């Protein structure tokens, strides 16, 4: 996963997750408050520059991660540009709605700014750090256990999925649409069977160690956590104020 690669190899890796989450939250609020599309677009550009040049995330990687969501945004914006109305003969007529352009520009710019805020967080913070942050925010233990297990097992399943797909492709399992559906059914069923087998194995392993409580793992130590969080909170507050006042 590209996001995981960047999250473990950037200059902000040792910055406290609370600080990065605080800044990302402020950026998301700013994106929602941005009074004009130009302000939101400027915010998106600023966040992208901060992620790439501040945190040292490669620009190409940022673009590759953002591309699918941006493409989806382009398609969604096109759908908003079309209006549906009665054609006078009891039918429906599709027509362009140029009056919707300002609204589309606002939605697209807000989405881009929000996406840049999300990417700033996820490209600089590994998921286990975010789970550690959620633990400190007192999310229910059962949700944290689900997240810890899901994170650790998804790589195991991804590997199993990849191996099975390769084996099926090597036996022409995807040569026709009918075979593809059958092969996918077998693949999903095989993985589903592994859900029980692996869960039973994990349960037995935990029981053997008297592990009937929450699943806890060591979190990395962030030396300047308080300082980082205060700086991020002040920067985020300033960002919200500046963004909100730009259109006033």
């Amino acid at each position: 996963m590209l996001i995981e690669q960047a999250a473990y190899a950037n200059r902000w890796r040792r910055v406290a997750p609370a600080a990065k989450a605080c800044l990302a939250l402020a950026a998301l609020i700013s994106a929602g408050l941005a009074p004009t599309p130009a302000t939101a677009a400027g915010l998106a550009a600023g966040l992208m520059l901060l992620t790439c040049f501040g945190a040292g995330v490669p620009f190409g990687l940022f673009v590759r991660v953002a591309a699918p969501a941006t493409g989806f945004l382009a398609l969604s914006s096109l759908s908003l540009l079309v209006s549906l109305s009665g054609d006078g003969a009891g039918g429906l007529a599709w027509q362009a709605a140029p009056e919707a352009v300002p609204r589309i520009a606002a939605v697209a710019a807000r989405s881009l700014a929000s996406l840049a805020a999300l990417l700033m967080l996820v490209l600089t913070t590994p998921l286990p750090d975010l789970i550690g942050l959620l633990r400190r925010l007192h999310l229910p233990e059962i949700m944290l256990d689900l997240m810890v297990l899901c994170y650790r097992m998804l790589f195991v399943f991804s590997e199993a999925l990849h191996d099975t797909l390769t084996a099926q492709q090597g036996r022409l399992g995807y040569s026709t649409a009918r075979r593809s559906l059958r092969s996918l059914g077998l693949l999903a069923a095989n993985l589903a069977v592994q859900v029980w087998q692996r869960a039973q194995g994990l349960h037995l392993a935990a029981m053997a160690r008297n592990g009937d409580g929450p699943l806890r793992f060591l979190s990395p130590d962030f030396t300047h956590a308080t300082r980082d969080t205060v700086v991020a909170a002040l920067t985020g507050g300033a960002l919200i104020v500046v963004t909100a006042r730009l259109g006033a």
Partner: protein
Amino acid sequence: MHIMEGFLPPAHALGWTLAAAPFVVWGVKSISRRLKEQPEQRMLLGVAAAFSFVLSALKLPSVTGSCSHPTGVGLGALLFGPAAMVPVGLVVLLFQALLLAHGGLTTLGANLFSMAIVGPFVAAGVFRLGRRLALPLAGCVFAAACLGDLATYLTTAIQLAWAFPDPAGGFVASLVKFGGIFAITQIPLAISEGLLTVLVVNALSRFNAEELKGMPLLGQGEVRA
């Protein structure tokens, strides 16, 4: 079909988050109760969340020639029950946002409502109704997965139509527009996912019949689709 980060107006994003919150609380309480009786299911639900995440990466061939990924809404609801699907769905959607930038944090509530609440409840309801009417299991599984999928997309279309009413025709025209766009791709995909779910349940009943007996929906009766 995830609504992307920032696409919904802030009031709508907040509203859908508030609408989904009671279901999350109920789902967490429900699985906490279940785990007190069956502690071994703690690992099962966590591993199932990883399975759902990986399943969403599969490319599903559609009868129109296009392809997309399965939602796993119907299969998850049939295996683990709709109540468990709310917290499991929350984790999967959160991970999709954080690891794939698919969906988003501001739209998490809206996506959760369509994919982890409406879809699984419709799938479970259709399955129960089908079994009560003594329909064949394969038909019940197919209908549950297919209609659960369609209900998910219909909910997403309603969410988008409500947020972006048509300038001329208002909410209804917008719903017809978004519903029409989704129908082109999603009806064939829902049929494909229904067929896929039948194949999965058949294979599971062959290889894992004992474990299926402990499941809330599929465990009630014979499990050969």
